[in-house]
């Protein structure tokens, strides 16, 4: 079974600075997808960024980028120029393969990020 670990339960960063959230996972699969989701106090899970394991290039979405290390099974999220609106829980998630049934989408326990003014 796949597992996702986020070793930082809580983090804080000053507004406009950069922060990196860690995620590691365990799988025997070769092709899979990784995601970072943001959950603000409104509770809605919002997709931040996704990475396909067969792509070596790290995904980037505006101020959000990832450092994907497939051999190390590591998938960290870097937030540049942090904004107050980035304050939220951040969940790392793993998907075995599209269309697969069952426990296909596994979440980590989350990291609570606070952006300080």
């Amino acid at each position: 079974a796949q597992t996702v670990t986020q070793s930082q339960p809580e983090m804080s960063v000053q507004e406009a600075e950069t922060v990196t959230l860690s995620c590691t996972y365990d799988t025997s699969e070769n092709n899979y997808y990784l995601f970072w989701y943001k959950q603000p106090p409104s509770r809605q899970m919002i997709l931040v960024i996704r990475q396909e394991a067969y792509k070596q290039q790290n995904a980037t979405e505006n101020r959000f980028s990832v450092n994907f290390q497939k051999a190390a099974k590591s998938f960290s999220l870097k937030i540049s120029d942090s904004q107050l609106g980035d304050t939220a829980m951040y969940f790392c998630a793993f998907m075995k393969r599209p269309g697969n049934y069952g426990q296909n989408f596994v979440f980590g326990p989350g990291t609570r990020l606070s952006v300080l003014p």
Partner: protein
Amino acid sequence: EAGVAQSPRYKIIEKRQSVAFWCNPISGHATLYWYQQILGQGPKLLIQFQNNGVVDDSQLPKDRFSAERLKGVDSTLKIQPAKLEDSAVYLCASSSSQGASGYTFGSGTRLTVV
């Protein structure tokens, strides 16, 4: 496009009572999921539908939880009777049949059992 709609947003019930949650997924999304998120934890899959059929309910406590997705669109999740440990946020999500773009989540229902 409209997002995943869920209701109610909050619900407080006494233990042993019953409760139902409703979800309307994104139009055209064949796959619908119900997740349970206990405070301080990541979401855990309860049940997955493909159209109107159940494809995985291995994590669903079937002695008290039930779910249906009539006509392959809306879905309801029911708990009867509720226990204190059922207090959680219940999230509904949907995806196209492949899901490689990730899932789209609703805002969830926060259930408190007292």
